[in-house]
Each structure stands twice: as C-alpha cells, then as structure tokens.
C-alpha cells in the first residue's frame, strides 16, 4: 500500500506532501472487535484490521489534467476528514492514486489494475463520459464500485456506478425552464465544444425547447476542443438574434469564447447567456470581468451560504492553499467518499454487493451543496441552481429550485 502513496508523492513532487495513508492509527483498534475483518470483507478486498484501500483514478497528465485535479483534491480532503473522524468501520482509508493520462483505454487498464491487483474496495474517479464508458465494462465485469463525480448527459445507469454529479434533467432542463419562465426567452442559440457531452446535452435541450417550452432553436454550432477563433461564431449569433445563448463550450475554448464575446460587444449587460460548463475553475482562467453578468447552471457554487459549505471551503483552502477555487465537479467529488462511508457503515461490510444494497436512500446532511439523498437509480436528489457571475470570479445564486429534483437519467420523450 505504501507503494501507492509513494508513487503519488513521486508523481506530484514535494509540494503536496500530505500522505493520508500514513495517518493510520489508534482509532481503528476498538471498532474492529465489532467488525472483524473476515466478516466485513468476504470478497478478498484490500481490507486489514486497521485499513481499507480505495482507488482514485483521474488524469494527472495530459489535456484533461487541468479539469480533473480539483476532483483529486476533493477526494483527498474527504478521505483525510473521514480518517480524522475514525475512518470507516474503524479502518483508516488509504488510497492508491492512478493516472488515467487523459487516455480512455488507460482508464480501463488502470481500473482493471486497481480492482484485480490492488483489490480496492471502491474507485473514485473519471471525468469525461468517454473515460467512464471505457471503465464501465471492466468495473461491471469485476463487480467493482465507481463513484463518478461529474455532471453528465445521463442515458446511463450502471449497477456498479454511483453518479454524484447532476444528470441532464437536473441541470439542463432546470436551466432552460428558468430561462423561459424567469427571463421570457423564446429563441435559443446552442453553442458547444465538439464532443459527446455537449451534443447529447443539446439534443435534450432542443427537444425540451421545441416540445415542452414551445420555443425555437435558432442555431446549434459545435467547435473542436481547443478551438480559439470564435469571431465568426459570434457574428453568426448576432445574425440570429436569439433571446438566450446556451453554451456548452468547455476547457481552453471557454476563455477564447468569452473574451471574444466581450470584445465584440456582447456582454452580460446586453446579452442573456447561460453556460452549462463554466464553473469557478473555468472563470479563474477566463477572468471574472469577461463573464460578469452571464449565468451558469449548477447544483453547487463556491459562494453558497450555509454552514456546511463554509466549513468545506475553509478546510479545502487549508489543505490545498488559500487561493484554491472550488467548482461544481470538485464538490460532487467530495461527496463520493462520504456517501461510500455511509453505505459501508449501514451495510456493516465493505463487500461491493452489500454496499450496493445499502446505497439507495443514503442521506448526507453535511454536503456543502446542502442535504442530498441517493436515489434508487444511483444518482443524487439535488437542487438546481442558477448563479450570476460577478467580476471577482464568484457567482451569486439568483435562483434555486424549491425542492430536491428527482434524478431521471432516462427522461421520457428525449
């Protein structure tokens, strides 16, 4: 096990020398009489009298590393906090960190390695849909468990995955309803990066706009990942004069897109734009002044005012530096280890089948986004929120759904 930790340190350099695994200690001893190892682990997982090993699998290198680091930091924080509280079933969590290297087959390989060689009790990780879909067959075959932290397009419900981010209906449809009802938008322009999530999301969006809202989609454009010349795109948008622009532009393109929007005179004061892929992480790069007055739809914003979130933000900054920003994905990642811990303790066992049986109905009261509950379909009941960006790179929540929204990965009619 120490190998995993060492590997991690070697990889990340000295800056992050916080080795969680080494904290293994006193707390474990008493609880293990209640939960003897041979009873909580009947399937050969890496569980000892004092420790349990889990895997973290994200891209530490390659193009996606930018987006996936936040999740790694969140997992580490949650694990450290759980260990401080005494661990899971009296066992300290140790983790093996694997690099998916932004390469989908590598994700599958590493997942296989984590499950077969390291025998981890669960895996936290994955970011892009492509990486998740690459891991799925492996995880289902090996009967592993994956906590997937990213908001995604839905259309999936694996018995071996827990989805801690929002699926499309909780984010996209809630946002479109808000645009139509609160802002009176009737014509929409959909613009996105060219890959699966934006295209699938916009499929759902188009159906919803045309069939439920009775509005019109006046444009739908995709630009290659990393595309930077949005001059023509902005002019296309001008020509169609939509009431609202819905953006699923991601990553580096985001910066170019928003800067060029602003430089062409379309800004928060005269244009209604809602992004489904712009969180605090991205705004850090785009610059608050370029998104000021635009909106984002997420379940979590760093500026949320509640006790859980204040504690979470403080702890995160203490562990990862005071200038850290926390985006939606990071918060959703943070929920993973806590939900797993709750399910394991309810099951009284680390065995995947037992944990699986006890997942539905798990409640978290300490989630930074507020109370959440696990649905039978292994997604979370969450609130939808709309944030309006300020020049300082933080969002003000301008709307929040009254209730938790039921997750519906296979929405009828979409």
């Amino acid at each position: 096990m120490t190998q995993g930790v060492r590997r991690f340190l070697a990889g990340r350099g000295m800056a992050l020398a916080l080795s969680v695994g080494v904290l293994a200690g006193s707390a474990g001893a008493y609880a293990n009489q209640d939960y003897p190892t041979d009873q909580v682990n009947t399937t050969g997982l890496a569980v000892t009298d004092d420790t349990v090993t889990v895997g973290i699998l994200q891209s530490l290198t390659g193009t996606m590393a930018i987006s996936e680091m936040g999740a790694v930091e969140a997992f580490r924080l949650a694990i450290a906090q759980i260990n401080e509280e005494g661990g899971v079933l009296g066992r300290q969590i140790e983790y093996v960190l694997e690099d998916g290297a932004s390469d989908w087959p590598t994700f599958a390989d590493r997942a296989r390695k984590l499950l077969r060689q390291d025998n981890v009790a669960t895996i936290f990780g994955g970011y892009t849909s492509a990486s998740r879909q690459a891991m799925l067959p492996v995880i289902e075959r090996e009967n592993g468990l994956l906590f997937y932290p990213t908001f995604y397009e839905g259309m999936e419900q694996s018995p071996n995955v827990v989805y801690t981010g929002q699926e499309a209906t909780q984010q996209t449809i809630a946002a479109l309803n808000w645009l139509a009802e609160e802002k009176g938008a009737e014509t929409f322009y959909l613009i996105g990066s060219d890959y699966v999530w934006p295209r699938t999301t916009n499929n759902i969006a188009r159906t919803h706009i045309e069939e439920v809202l009775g509005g019109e989609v006046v444009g739908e454009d995709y630009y290659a990942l990393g595309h930077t010349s949005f001059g023509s795109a902005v002019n296309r948008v001008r020509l169609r004069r939509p009431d609202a622009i819905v953006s699923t532009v991601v990553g580096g393109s985001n910066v170019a897109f928003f800067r060029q929007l602003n430089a062409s005179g379309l800004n928060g004061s005269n244009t209604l734009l809602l992004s489904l892929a712009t969180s605090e992480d991205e705004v850090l790069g785009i610059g608050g002044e370029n998104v000021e007055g635009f909106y984002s739809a997420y379940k979590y914003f760093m500026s949320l005012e509640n006790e859980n979130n204040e504690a979470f933000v403080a702890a995160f900054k203490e562990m990862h530096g005071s200038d850290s920003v926390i985006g939606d994905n990071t918060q959703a990642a943070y929920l993973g280890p806590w939900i797993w811990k709750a399910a394991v303790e309810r099951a009284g066992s680390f065995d995947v089948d037992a944990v699986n049986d006890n997942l539905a109905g798990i409640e978290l009261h300490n989630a930074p986004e507020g109370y959440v509950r696990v649905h039978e379909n292994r997604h979370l009941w969450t609130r939808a929120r709309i944030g309006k960006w300020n020049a300082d790179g933080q969002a003000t929540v301008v709307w929040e759904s009254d209730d938790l929204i039921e997750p519906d990965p296979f929405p009828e009619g979409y």
Partner: protein
Amino acid sequence: MGDFTTEELLAIFAMQGFAGLSLFSVLLLMALGLAIIYGQMRVINMAHGEFMVIGAYTTYFISTLVVSQAPWFLDYYVFIAVPAAFLMAFIVGWIVEAVLIRHLYHRPLDTLLATWGLALIMQQAFRSIFGAREVSVRLPSWLQGSYQPTLMIDIPINGIAIMVLTLFVTAGVAWMMYRSRWGLRVRCTVSNREMSGAVGINTRSVDRLTFAVGCGIAGIAGAAFTTISSTGPTSGALYIVDTFLVVVFGGAGSLLGTMASAFSIAQGQSILEFFISGSMAKVLTLLVVIGILMLRPEGLFASKVRR
C-alpha cells in the same frame, strides 16, 4: 434572414470581414517563424507550437509579476512582454539548434520526428513548471472591449492589436530578409548552399541564427495569443497542423506565399464558419487545401531554387 435592415446586415458583414482578417493575422504570425525555418533549412519543426507556448508563458509570468509587484505598470507591460517572449524563445531555439537540429540537416523527415520528441519534453517541462491548469493573463484595460466606428459595428481591440503586431513583425522579417546582410546570406544559402560556403558565408551560423529567429517569432506569436485565449502545457499542439498547412500551402521559402496562403486559409475558414457550423467548416477548409496541394504539389508560390 428575416427582419434585418440593410445597415444591420452590412454591419455584420463588416464585422465578419474583420473576423477573417483577425484570423489571418494570427495564422500569419504563427506561420512566419516556421516558414523562415523551413525555407532556410528544410527543418520541420514540430515543436513550433511549444515555442509559441514559451512566449505565452513568458507573457503570463511577466503579467503576474506586474500584477503583484507593480500594478501601475499593468497598462504597459505588453511592451516588455513581447520582446521578452521573443528573447526567451530565441534563446531556447538557439540552444535547441546547437544541441539537436544541427545533427539533422539533410534529413528533413527525421527532423520532424526528433522535434516531435522535443515537443513532448517541452510540454512536460511546462507542466512541471507552470502546472497542468491553463492560465490566462490579465489584459491591460486598453486591450479589452471593442472599438465602435458606428453604433452597430464592434471591432475587438485585441484583434486590432494583433493585426498591428503582425504588420510590424512581417515588415521586420521582410526587412531582415531583403535588406539586411543576414537576409542576404540566408537567401544565398537557400539558393545554393555549397556555393555560399565557397564564397565565405558561414552557413552554419546562418542556420543557427535563422532557427533562433524563427523560434523567437513563434514566441511573439505566443505572446499575442495570450490576448485571445488561455495557455496550457499542451496548447502548442493545437495549432501545429494549421500552421504547417499554411507554410506548405504557401510554398516553402516564399514570404509572399506564406502571406497569401495564410490569407486564403483564414478567409476561407472564417467565411465557411459563418455559413456552416464550426467543425465542418474546418473539415471543408482542410479538404480544399489538400485538393489544391494535389494540383500544385509545391504550394501556391513555389520558390525557384537551383540545386
């Protein structure tokens, strides 16, 4: 297009024309350095994008330094950043030539492979130094926003700035090529390397200087790019195909060709992007370029070279 007045349509077309020009200056700035290097010594520098990233990170470094140490200087730092970006990329280029490239003259396809290896190393170096996250610079206020000649036309100021920069750099390169002693030597070496050697031109040092200058210009392009987009360790790889196509399409070793090719590719792509969706526009542009290259395998302006 529905209920648009002629004025509005004209305004949009004017802005569209500018978008094309703006893409043109970006492409040209990126391709100039590569064109010089390829024209002079037929080295395919796959790490060209990474030299741009050097320039971009230099600019980022200076801008963060200014923001934290001397905020009053924020409006002017670009005037230091651009030369600094050139210098950094120039120095690295000089070293790379001395260590790596000079062993590979006469092996054009091998330079392609070796510089790909170099690109990987540089990417990882960026990642180790600056981290994996993309960074973006704080722009001086005068570079933000738009210029409005009429009520309906918005011209992005950063686009204008890049155009002016490109103009200066192109003029500088043209002057160096056709008016300076270095340019004379370069042109001599290109047209007949053995003979140039025989008349006392040190072709080795011409090569090295040319390579370093080409890299330096890439650095300037990177600095300019920070006004448009963010910079990450792998940003350079995004532009390499476009850049190469510009150079190849223009015809190796012809400054005029590079300009013409950057212009036609930029206008083509930007007009197509206006009428059809973005990624398909790219496909069409590339296909047309390949088609023309098939008809004119030496590019638009093939230089007549005696060997």
